[in-house]
């Protein structure tokens, strides 16, 4: 073991990671990192954070983003020069009258249309290429763990809701709807990787989640009974807990497994 009379602090390593330290300090830290395992471990963690942060995509605006923005901005700049005039905020602008409302309506309609139209150049999924495979594996397992944990909580809530409940099922419906959306992606991936067991559980779960998402906001006794019956008939709580357990075992393994993403 090499004795060290100096170690860079975490903040020094952060500066180093962004190359904000002086060149002579950079050389000293690089030398130190080759020899000191403790500092090298911190360094790897900071680098992993940088990679993860860089892998988080921002949706790329549509090709005509600048035109769309200008269409929203320009009407608020109609008098010049800028320093001597009043500039309306978007809410004030909408309120000033029929002419402005018409313009705003056109702008808003265009904006909504853009939001529902796929961009001509969608953001590339660069994450897969830039992050180590073990981190990727862990992220995917964390996602699945979260999906099934939420599913389990929802199923338990439904099973334990009082029969004569007059309360709203709005929250459960919304949660189920979110889970249906994410479940579709997991289902596709599970099928691609040939994970039959996971695919089957996801199929069973999707059916119930869809039923919950489409249930009346204030269900009667029969509605709840039908949902519970399906949960019990398919042994869903047991299956969800079992698959969650498998996922957690795999999460606990140091490093990624080599069995594929799921």
């Amino acid at each position: 073991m090499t004795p060290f009379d100096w170690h860079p602090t975490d903040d020094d390593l952060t500066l180093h990671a962004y190359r904000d330290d002086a060149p002579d300090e950079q050389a000293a830290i690089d030398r130190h990192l080759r020899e000191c395992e403790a500092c090298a471990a911190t360094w790897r963690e900071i680098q992993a954070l940088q990679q993860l942060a860089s892998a988080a995509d921002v949706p790329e605006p549509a090709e005509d983003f600048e035109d769309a923005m200008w269409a929203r901005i320009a009407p608020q700049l109609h008098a010049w020069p800028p320093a001597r005039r009043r500039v309306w905020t978007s809410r004030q602008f909408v309120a000033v009258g029929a002419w402005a409302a018409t313009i705003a309506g056109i702008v808003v309609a265009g904006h909504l249309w853009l939001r529902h139209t796929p961009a001509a150049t969608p953001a590339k999924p660069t994450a897969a290429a830039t992050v180590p495979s073990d981190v990727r594996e862990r992220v995917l397992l964390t996602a699945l763990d979260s999906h099934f944990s939420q599913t389990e909580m929802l199923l338990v809530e439904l099973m334990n809701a009082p029969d004569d409940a007059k309360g709203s099922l709005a929250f459960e419906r919304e949660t189920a709807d979110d889970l249906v959306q994410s479940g579709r992606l997991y289902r596709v991936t599970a099928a691609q990787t040939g994970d039959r067991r996971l695919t089957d559980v996801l199929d069973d779960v999707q059916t119930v989640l869809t039923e919950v998402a489409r249930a009346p906001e204030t269900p009667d006794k029969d509605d709840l009974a039908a949902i519970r019956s399906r949960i019990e008939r398919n042994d869903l709580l047991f299956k969800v807990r079992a698959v969650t357990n498998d996922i957690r075992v795999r999460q606990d393994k140091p490093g990624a497994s080599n069995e594929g993403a799921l």
Partner: protein
Amino acid sequence: MQPDDATLVRQAAGGDQTAFRLLVDRHSRSVFRLAYRITGQREDAEDVVQETFVRAFRQLDRFESRSNFGTWLYRIGFNCAIDATRSRSHRETAEEPSLLDQRARAGMATGDDLIYAGQISAQVQQALGALSDQERAAFVMRHYHECSIDEIGQALDLKTSAAKHAVFRAVRKMRVALRPLVAPRTEGT
């Protein structure tokens, strides 16, 4: 050859609408990315871009030509983005489904690519959301926009050492928040 930002600002301040349009064309995407990192919502980020340029226009006479227009704009954009997040009580930080749908339709990614990208974005966005406004802005500017510490200080009205420490605090908190993704789980965590 395209005129530089300082020239366009002078022209715009003098009433040249085309010059201001060029500034919007040149900077609106980077303001959008900054705003998206802070708000976590496409719609909010677009509103922030609009509001940023309207405010910038209103303050053009205060812009000092020796400054960097992009950094000046980030400062306004940052304030607009913070206003947007504060005015929205139920902020949704996860990546928008539309982005995933967009990729899926384009056939550009496999299922686990989509899950992975969505999860990364959601987790990073959540970690960013847990930072203070100042830390979040400092991290976004340093990491995503490659602003120098001095530029961050200018944009956030901080001394250089305070800007540096805002980045340090942000990195420390982000490491803690994202540690489960980069290190094996331990019992009880």
